[in-house]
């Protein structure tokens, strides 16, 4: 493995780990905000108990996620100094800079929300503070996704003059051609995945708990996460379709790799799984005309791009076709599961009475994380070998210092321990943090 490949591997590993923590952070603070809102409307002690516990576990994910975010920011400098030099000389640095202030908003609001409970007497304080923390968290995620959008569709300087940086437009990176589509899809899928994972945890707890009070709390969370997930999967489908249309228009080579189009053309089939052998599609399923039909509906384009329009040295690894297909298929499977849950809501059936749905929820929670990670892998690997699409290759941006090797492997080993440990502490602290409820609701199925 060359140093450039090592840098790429290390950063990919760090981001892959980081997004698990961020997903959990976002889902927990979203849950807290919803619970704070419900507590205002209905004076139910169960909400207070859940808020009390979830606040504590949120601090864990926030603390580790913050550190992990700083690791990412500093790794960008340490592993890809060439890239960060371009960033610093273009408006992209403004995105990082604005993100820092969003981060401050999130941090200080969190400190007030968690450690100064009851200090401000206004009855909406907790709800507002949780909402501010949620907003800071989401805005941070938006800014960092904007950076990624810029990497996919760079603007704000004369790319033709590169490596000279000329014609800098400081605000342009805030709205690249792919920003809207990518930000919407990332936000929706992050919230969706977090909700599914939280739902899985509480479904598991519901199956295991024997204490009726605990089961009431578990029910509340499973029902909230189910509603969030149902809305999320619908929006994920819509934003994902929009994102694919954006890739077709703005990153045609990536699109060709996703759909394994060897040559450009019209009336293209949809290729499911399989691979290319001497330019021919093998070992997969083809649905005639479907790809072109979808592309025409989404973008109006009738002629679709092919890999051979570009030098082979600039092709991404064609594995992205498989990761893309697994991601889409995974989304559809999750959609089917959530449709069953949706039906139970419509038919006013209590789906928590069916153990198979709870087991399915646990599996779906884990599976949603795999799908989410695959989505990120598809996007990032699909841009290779570029770090800034069609402008700068990873090999030109990388740090070739061998001093990175040992601490780099230590970081990998560290994350392999840290992420499971974080979940362990999450479970443990959630379970030991229950407050004494003065008045328990007298039956299960508390309305929310």
């Amino acid at each position, binding site marked *: 493995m060359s140093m450039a490949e090592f840098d790429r591997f290390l950063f990919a590993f760090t981001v892959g780990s980081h997004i698990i923590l961020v997903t959990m952070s976002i889902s927990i603070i979203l849950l807290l905000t919803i619970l704070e809102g419900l507590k205002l409307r209905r004076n139910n002690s169960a909400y207070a108990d859940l808020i009390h516990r979830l606040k504590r576990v949120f601090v864990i994910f926030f603390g580790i996620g913050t550190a992990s975010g700083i690791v990412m920011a500093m790794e960008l400098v340490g592993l890809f100094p060439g890239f960060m030099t371009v960033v610093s000389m273009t408006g992209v640095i403004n995105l990082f800079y604005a993100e820092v202030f969003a981060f401050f908003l999130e941090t200080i609001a969190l400190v007030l929300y968690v450690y100064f409970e009851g200090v401000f007497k206004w009855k909406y304080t907790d709800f507002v503070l949780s909402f501010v923390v949620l907003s800071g968290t989401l805005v941070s995620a938006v800014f960092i996704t904007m950076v990624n959008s810029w990497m996919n569709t760079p603007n704000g300087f004369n790319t033709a003059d590169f490596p000279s940086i000329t014609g800098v437009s400081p605000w342009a990176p805030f709205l690249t051609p792919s920003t809207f589509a990518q930000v919407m899809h990332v936000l929706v899928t992050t919230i969706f995945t977090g909700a599914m994972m939280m739902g899985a945890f509480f479904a598991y707890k519901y199956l295991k708990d024997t204490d009726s009070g605990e089961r009431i709390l578990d029910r509340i969370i499973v029902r909230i996460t189910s509603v969030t997930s149902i809305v999320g999967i619908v929006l994920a489908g819509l934003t994902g379709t929009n994102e694919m249309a954006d890739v077709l228009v703005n990153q045609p080579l990536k699109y060709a790799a996703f759909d394994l189009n060897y040559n450009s053309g019209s009336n293209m089939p949809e290729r499911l799984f399989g691979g290319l052998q001497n330019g021919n599609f093998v070992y997969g399923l083809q649905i005639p005309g479907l790809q072109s039909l979808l592309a025409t509906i989404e973008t109006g384009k009738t002629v679709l791009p092919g890999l051979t329009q570009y030098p082979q040295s600039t092709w991404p690894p064609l594995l992205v076709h498989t990761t893309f297909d697994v991601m889409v298929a995974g989304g559809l499977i999750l959609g089917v599961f959530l449709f069953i849950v949706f039906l139970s809501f419509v038919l006013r059936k209590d789906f928590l009475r069916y153990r198979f749905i709870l087991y399915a929820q646990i599996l779906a929670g884990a599976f949603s994380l795999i799908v989410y990670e695959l989505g990120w892998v598809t996007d990032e690997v699909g841009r290779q070998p570029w770090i800034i699409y069609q402008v700068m290759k990873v090999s030109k941006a990388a740090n070739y210092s061998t001093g990175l090797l*040992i601490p780099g492997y230590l970081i990998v080993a560290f994350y392999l321990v840290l992420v499971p440990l974080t979940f362990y502490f999450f479970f443990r602290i959630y379970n030991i943090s229950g407050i004494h409820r003065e008045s328990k609701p007298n039956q299960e199925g508390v309305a929310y």
Partner: protein
Amino acid sequence: MLLINFYFYSTFAIFSVFVVLVFTEIMGSVLLLLNWNRYRNAVLPYIVPVWEVTGTFAAFWVVTSDFAYPALLIPLASIFSTALMTFLIVFVLRNATISFAEFFNKKGWMDSRKLFSGYALSTLLIGLIALVVLASVIEGNGINLSNLTFSLSDWSSSASGILFMVGALVILIGLAPIFYNDRDLKTASILFVVLGVIISNVSFVLFKDYSLSFLVAIPDVLTIALPLLFFWESTGRIISNKIAFIFLASVDIFSMSFMVYPTALGGKLNVDSITNSGPLAFSYDVITLVGTIILALLIILYATAVKRKGTASYIEQAHDS
């Protein structure tokens, strides 16, 4: 370039606040490691909410420095690659241990005290790494600019860097009783701070290619003033106020900016020549203005909350339940 290098001084100001926040954590860590039972009630109520803000200031400083010195990123990333990655591991360890410790009681051999000790040790290590990097940036010792490498053995072969680090740590040990208001140690505080300042000044004299300016007297006087003010009851109350201390200590650190301006790396690097002066300045200033207003409002809100209620009771609650 402007008459004053605004970006240099603004990044140094952010750096100063960040360093002071780290130092206050190091001081607390030293006390926790020395005598857990005696100091936990004084240290934890401060550290527990503030560690999250310190991390944010780290990001703040990194990003503003990225903007201010884009030309330095490649050389610094190569020179300090090992230090940077080691710092990152320890930083995550610090956050992990303290966030686990906050609400954790006991499970098997693990308890919150051990986790807090892990936090204290990792914070100390962060301080040591930062001091090594800071000393080498001021003096240039251990840095090979032609190969863009840093050698810890070369760095440690010179007494100046070691003395700089020892001096800083002795000063921090001396300042700890002030910040955490242990009046029993007010005399020891003076002795440690004076000793630390002397050691630091010796290190400055030994820095190669570095001409000692009379301006070094500014941080010296400010640093020694802190334990002297603490010595008397009336002024001691003011100086042990955390906000007052952080402000004064930040001014103290900021006054060291002349040691890296106009040249850093022992005179090898002209700071003005590597400061960003491109077309991004206006947008950067706009974000700075808007962000600073938001930050100021948040800090006012935070200060109001601190004034109304400390955090001690919350921590007790956390460990009781």
